[in-house]
């Protein structure tokens, strides 16, 4: 009958509809602002904008224009982040690196508790010989969750490599060895070389970059330096309980060709979650 024929033809028109360039430009501009405010690297924002614009103009419009563009951006972001990095529940050594104050020491305890809950026997080695009371901090965190702890005082060694070697030997009957290192940044060549040397000495299966969610445009430069030194296998984004959107994580993932394993969501040892791409991207886009 006429009514259903009309319905069919309207559907056809809507289905073959393409979004117009002016609408796309306006919508992409809005999304650019959201990405910049989320601390996504400016060059990546431009790249994403071009990809989204191109796809939005060529792909069939099945949703309303705004949803159409957002869905495309959402897919592009998920594409960059990839799947969550799955750290296998096997005996291994895990080295934690990152910028000063990013949350490495706290995350060592959180990670130890994670493996403990999964039935493995974790142990922690403090390889930070620089920060005042670094050992005290980590020792206390480990004591709270009954995880064995090793530092320079345990072996009377002053050299970082010797401490880590002694710790690995001491904890040979433990499953997961987590090694905390001192904060450092890309311009400290001797410190970057130190983590390269530690990595070469103990060959950790996992080398995790601990990154503050609020990091700005420096994320890719810093991630690159750590990756070149030891090859990053996974990323932990901390302080997600704040208001930072974590856009720097995109660059870190891209630079290290790895992925995000966990999120730190507070100061307590239980404030630790497996990374979920959908939730992360939704939060990033607000």
């Amino acid at each position, binding site marked *: 009958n006429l009514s259903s024929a009309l319905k069919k033809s309207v559907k056809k028109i809507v289905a073959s509809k393409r979004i117009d360039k002016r609408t796309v430009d306006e919508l992409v501009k809005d999304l650019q602002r959201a990405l910049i405010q989320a*601390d996504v690297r*400016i060059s990546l924002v431009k790249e994403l904008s071009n990809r989204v614009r191109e796809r939005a103009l060529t792909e069939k419009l099945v949703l309303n224009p705004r949803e159409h563009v957002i869905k495309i951006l959402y897919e592009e972001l998920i594409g960059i982040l990839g799947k969550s990095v799955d750290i296998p529940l096997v005996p291994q050594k895990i080295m934690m690196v990152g*910028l000063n*104050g990013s949350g490495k020491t706290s995350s060592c305890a959180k990670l130890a508790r994670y493996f403990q809950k999964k039935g493995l026997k974790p142990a922690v080695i403090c390889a930070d010989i620089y920060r005042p009371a670094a050992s005290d901090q980590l020792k206390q965190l480990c004591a709270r969750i009954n995880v064995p702890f090793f530092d320079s005082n345990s072996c009377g060694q002053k050299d970082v490599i010797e401490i880590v070697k002694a710790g690995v030997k001491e904890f040979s009957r433990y499953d997961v060895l987590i090694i905390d290192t001192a904060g450092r940044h890309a311009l400290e060549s001797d410190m970057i070389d130190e983590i390269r040397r530690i990595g070469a000495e103990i060959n950790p299966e996992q080398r995790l970059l601990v990154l503050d969610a609020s990091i*700005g445009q420096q994320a890719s430069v810093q991630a690159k330096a750590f990756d070149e030194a030891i090859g990053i296998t996974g990323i932990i984004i901390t302080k997600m309980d*704040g208001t930072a*959107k974590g856009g720097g994580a995109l660059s870190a993932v891209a630079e290290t060709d790895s992925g995000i394993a966990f999120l730190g969501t507070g100061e307590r040892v239980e404030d630790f979650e497996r990374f979920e791409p959908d939730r992360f991207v939704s939060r990033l886009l607000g």
Partner: protein
Amino acid sequence: TILDEGDVKTPLEELELALLESDTALAVVEELIPRVKANLIGKKVSRREDTHEIVTDALKEALLEILSCNNFDFDEFVESSDKPVNITFVGINGTGKTTTIAKIAKRLFDAGYSVVIASADTYRAGATEQIEEHASRLGLKVIKHQYGADPAAVVYDAVKYAKANHKDVVLADTAGRMHTSVNLMEQLRKICRVTKPDMVLFVDEAIAGNDAVERAKRFDELIGIDASILTKVDMDVKGGAAISIAYSTSKPIIFMGTGQGYDDLEKFDPKKFVERLIG
């Protein structure tokens, strides 16, 4: 010749991009650039070729204005204040408060002042041990309570000690906290209400991006800050966060942390900073 929108458009876009890539928050850039633009349109210039330079100078001027807002001299403040002066340090987790206190302590000590440190981070593991180590290296007294004690009581005791022993300055270290934590921000409000600091210094890091605006704003709204200190400037950052923080709080940046050593502290120089940012 008179400048029109077309003349200033490209130079402004380039400068806007430079600011964003230097970690200046979008919210700040979006308010700043149109203002600079409005002031430039209709401006007389002797040669059109000078436009780029004129636009850059106009932006530098606007940035200087932001960075000079409510400015004061830290040393003069300490000098002229009734003793003991209570300076309390606040901020987000891991930004460098404890290390900055050690640097300021050394600076004041070298300038001839007697300094007492209040270890009012009674919450984080190893916090008191950390500041005690700094204090012992500098030969300074630390007032501390046991783990979990009321931070306000620690500061209160430190001021009491300073009064009784004629000490000039109390530097109070507080626990890092998220501006999103209602309880922790309320705790900080209480500390300030009870101990009435002479100066509240907000400590944040140069490496932070757009979130620098939100957290500085919230700390200023909820606690009230007198000035900010920008740390980790040595991490190869242009430091645009300084603009973000100064703009959103209308309070000055007074020091920059440029490393982990006690001497890695510089008095903030707005002119030098702006030159480095878009020189």
